[in-house]
């Protein structure tokens, strides 16, 4: 009997803690309300299932506990009931999967006019490179990384000369789609901005991608979400979203490849 009571208490406790809202999504600051939507539908479906199934469990244990003279009924199966339950489950799965897959197909299709920015991860910091006035990021090669060329820029590529470098902060213009090209110099990291719902691994030897549109002006934080050594928990970087004019002003003050990177 106590077990039924405790099960109900656990369900109530879970609901109360969740509803308190203390630990819930950070306010969304990007276009990805579809991700939030897919996640919320999924959480709603599993939340209902969690409550219903545990209440049923609590009830059955209470109602059918052993008492004097009680006897179980011999009910080995009921194929019709099984089929109905499978049908309901499959329906639930489709309800949460379909919106998710639609959102995913948009997720993997960056818009053509996205601003390209390179993110470079290393133990234990993030750096950034902007394409500069020519709109093209110059080639980079991990073999060219040196103390004077921390990004490994291929200086023979003319498109690289005007690239703008930021060694600590990511600045973004509000309302403009951004396509990140993410790299790592050493081990696997993961570039995670909770407010934008952005996350993509930074893998040495490849370039990974992620796109989003920041929609809220403010100061946010990028953290590392893949264990990368003893500094993993300190590997973070400010992300500043600002008006276009402020963004361009900031950009103009940053070092470029031409002025700071030597072979």
């Amino acid at each position, binding site marked *: 009997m106590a077990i039924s009571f405790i099960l109900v208490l656990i369900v109530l406790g879970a609901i109360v803690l969740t509803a308190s809202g203390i630990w819930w999504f950070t306010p969304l600051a990007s276009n990805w309300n579809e991700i939030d939507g897919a996640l919320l539908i999924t959480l709603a479906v599993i939340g209902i299932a969690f409550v219903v199934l545990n209440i049923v469990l609590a009830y059955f244990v209470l109602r059918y506990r052993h008492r004097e003279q009680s006897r*179980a009924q011999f009910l080995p199966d009921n194929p019709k009931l099984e089929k109905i339950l499978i049908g309901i489950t499959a329906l639930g799965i489709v309800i949460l999967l379909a919106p998710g897959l639609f959102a995913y197909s948009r997720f993997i299709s960056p818009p053509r006019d996205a601003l390209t920015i390179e993110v470079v991860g290393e133990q234990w910091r993030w750096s950034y490179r902007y394409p500069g006035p020519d709109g093209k990021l110059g080639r980079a090669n991990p073999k060219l990384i040196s103390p004077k060329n921390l990004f490994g820029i291929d200086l023979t590529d003319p498109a690289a000369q005007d690239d703008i470098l930021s060694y600590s902060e990511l600045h973004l213009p509000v309302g403009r789609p951004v396509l990140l090209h993410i790299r790592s110099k050493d081990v696997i990291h*993961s570039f995670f901005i909770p407010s934008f719902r952005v996350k993509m691994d930074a893998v040495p030897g490849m370039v990974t991608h992620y796109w989003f549109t920041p929609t809220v002006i403010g100061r946010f934080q990028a953290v590392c979400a893949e264990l990368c050594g003893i500094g993993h928990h300190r590997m973070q970087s400010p992300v500043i979203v600002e008006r276009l004019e402020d963004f361009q002003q900031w950009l103009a003050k940053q070092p470029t490849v031409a002025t700071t990177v030597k072979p």
Partner: protein
Amino acid sequence: MTHHTHHEPQSFWTKYIFSQDHKVIAIQYTITALLVGLFGLVLSWLMRLQLGFPGSFQFLNPGSYYQMLTQHGMIMIVYLLTAILLGGFGNYLIPLMIGARDMAFPFLNMLSYWVYLLSVIVLMAAFFVPGGPTGAGWTLYPPLSALPNAAPGSGWGIKLMLISLVIFIAAATMGGLNYVTTVLQCRTKGMTLMRMPLSVWGIFIASVMALFAFPALFAGGVMLLFDNLLGTSFFIPAVTLFGQQLPREGGNPLLFQHLFWYFGHPEVYVVILPAMGIASDLISTHARKPIFGYKAMVLAMAAIAFIGFIVWAHHMFVSGMNPYFGFFFAVSTLIIAIPSAVKVYNWLLTLWRGNIRLNVPMLFGIGWISTFIIGGLTGLPLGNVVADVPLHDTYFVVGHFHLVMGVAALMAIFGGIYHWFPKVTGRMLNETLGKLHFWVTFVGAYAIFFPMFLMGILGVPRRYFDFNALQYLPPQTSALNIAITVAALTVGAVQLIFLGNLIWSALWGKRAEANPWGATTLEWQTPTTPPPHGNWGAQTPTVYRWAYDYSVPGAERDFIPQNVPTEPQVLVGAQSTVR
């Protein structure tokens, strides 16, 4: 009549140490696994001390923390759960439940235990070498795990870990060959596959999975070892570590991830399927009612096993792999939810209209259902690819896998131990301590892991030494972490009471009758308790019915053992009980 291949052992050494008797080997596996699990448990206390009270302890620095995290994960999943479910429960139950005298290959069986023990020793040796054990996460992703000084334990630590895993895989293969062959070839007369108890089905299907999954880890592990030890570049691309360019190039870190998870995902089903089978038997026996939908339960386990081999890349949704793979793996992952859900409904429907004895094994069975529900359900947002993006590598994942593997599976294991202890030792475990063990573990587990889902939704990453750098945490988070730590230490303490109960009751516990629970399965029908060498005396049993004749209408008692012949007349108004 099945064959048995060895004579009665004579000396102390051949009876208790180098025994080929599956029951002795099972106990050896269980004791070793519990001891190594205790060590893993202590590591979890230390981690929680750091997370609840950051900076309070000198020896808890990031390096040692990441080492503990890594070792805790590897120990619990591989050296505790897999070993105790297959090597412990599998070895003890399979021959007894199918009416065999022993395993098909008793010598290989004995060898498998000693090789397992060797793997444990090699694993532990890493704690004593310069640099200590590896701190690259139980997933051992290169380049972090392979490059010198990239992570703690990159010297002897990672080498010993990989060598230990290779040795474990040899032991697991020997064991798996035994369990599968024995089920296929050594069943007693009348014991058809569809009359086997679900405990056997769970362990059997899991063993098949293990046989086909571990080789991928073997291949990946050997290649990783070569990358670390011999300078190859299977997984290492061109890298610059701490300003130094390393003489490597061309390797593919994602290749390791594919190999690892091709093993890793089936591995979690290797852990959960035996637990499902055991839970089914606990619930039906103690509710005095046949398991609901036996055939569906078997088919569901087979479906989970099969589909379990084609979901692996849901661990890699944000790894940088080809994004189109995301569609496939999200669909396959969510499909596997269906047979799992069917099993949950069937456990509930077994309780429905039952005659539920709330003894300790049943309490753990109920605990299994509840924690498997939440553990399993929280896999769905993770499998729904786009929803996984914010949740991957956050505390949501930590909550999910702990509840499903670290709690639910453990509920089944504990329930199984309380249930079969009288058969193994001839004595009962202390019931009051058992209930205490259940209550603290069950409620405590929810207290520890439920809040982690909320932390994950907020965006708190996993594998963090402390959360000082995160600027978006509500101030109540440190109090929450303290609460979780207190719960964890309390749950940890009660496990010590359980271990004490095991030892005390084995020596001085109340004497048990041959079949204290009134169970139908064959292991309760041995001539003596504990069962003798060769299990059955002069004649192996003959089976006439399935494993779930509980509360059969018109029967004298509320259970009919499998080896009781069926009545010639048909009972009016009742369904046929012969399956």
